[in-house]
């Protein structure tokens, strides 16, 4: 990373920890999506783990950017949170309707 040249040690550690946490959440969510038995638990795992993972990755990246980029990243995170929630709801309802029909 060439961008974070003048970061203090504590900030670097903190940001790396946040980035690693985010990655861990993403990996956990992906593994859960592949391994969980039914659609509902998969949706639950993917939506929760990924929005939290993205949140911590954005928090980790915030050490490297100026306030304007931070604001944009926060807005993106909010948008992804909202769309993730809505699409999770919609997919779960679709599964429910299909289950009821069957």
């Amino acid at each position, binding site marked *: 990373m060439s961008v974070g040249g003048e970061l203090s040690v504590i900030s670097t550690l903190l940001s790396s920890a946040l980035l690693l946490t985010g990655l861990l959440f993403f990996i956990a969510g992906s593994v859960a999506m592949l391994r969980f038995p039914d659609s509902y638990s998969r949706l639950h795992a993917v939506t929760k783990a990924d929005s939290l993972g993205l949140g911590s990755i954005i928090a980790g990246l915030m050490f490297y950017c100026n306030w304007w980029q931070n604001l944009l990243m926060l807005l993106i995170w909010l948008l992804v949170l909202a769309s993730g929630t*809505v699409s999770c709801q*919609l997919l779960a309802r679709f599964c429910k309707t299909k289950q009821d029909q069957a």
Partner: protein
Amino acid sequence: MSLLLFDVLLCGLLLALALASVLSRQLSHAVILYIAFGLLMALTWARLAAPDLALAEAAIGAGLTGALCFTALARQGKLAASPTLSWQQRCWPALFVLVTLFGLLLLVLQLPAKPGPLPALVMQQLAASGVSHPVTAVLLNFRSWDTLLELLVLLLALLGTLQVAPAPVYQSSWVLSRSWSQLLAPLIIVLAGYLLWAGAHQPGGAFQAGALLAAGAVVLKLNHQLNWLAWRNIWVRFFAIAGLTVFVAAVLTAWLLSGALAEPVWLRWPPELAKYIILLIEIFATLAIAITLTLLVVAEQPATPLSLARQEDDEAADG
């Protein structure tokens, strides 16, 4: 080194997704994998210093093509597993493709690493083009012929689709998805306006703005909103054709204006007017692209007796 690692990962994922999409057992899996592939393509364009393409691909490749393929899937009704092919049916094409791939790799890796003279030429002429973003300058000034013909192709595709597409399969929509799409609509309009405006000096422009507007309009249309946005509306027809018409009118005007010169040149803007001509064309092209792409994805039958599909449907209803 870290960038190379990223590239290897990206290329590996792209190839894996494309292969899985081609080889998957079920058609629906193939489509979903293709949408994921389109998203990664957008990331690849961003990696390869092509932000204009990344913007367009995110709206077109991942959004509109996905919606198109899912509509096609929904039309096919109940999904059966693909018919299994014998190993002969798989082996011979694979052999052929491997030989072709070998030849392609040989050719591609021999390409010279030096760029041609065109980028330097564009940079040299950029000041006279009326915009400061090179891609927009190429699209709407240096090679505006391409853009003109592309608008024509879009219009022809729309006319063909309106002729042959059967009536869409309408599903009821949920309140949640409807209100979410309504919530997104103003955001998309603001973003599209920004992209259009930004196109003059940074990545963005008519194509990206039009594709983004179309993506938003498709989501709204699928939720039974925007009922006026159909081919039967005379204004929709007007604006779908206006992109091309305004372009041709601008070309003719510029041609007449440059008539005083010894040798008037087709499709060349006078430098002092170029900025305004490009802005005018871009506004109408954005609207035309947005309307055309929306109608291509949610193709609706025009209520004219001339349409082939409509006639057949009526016959089917009578009989």
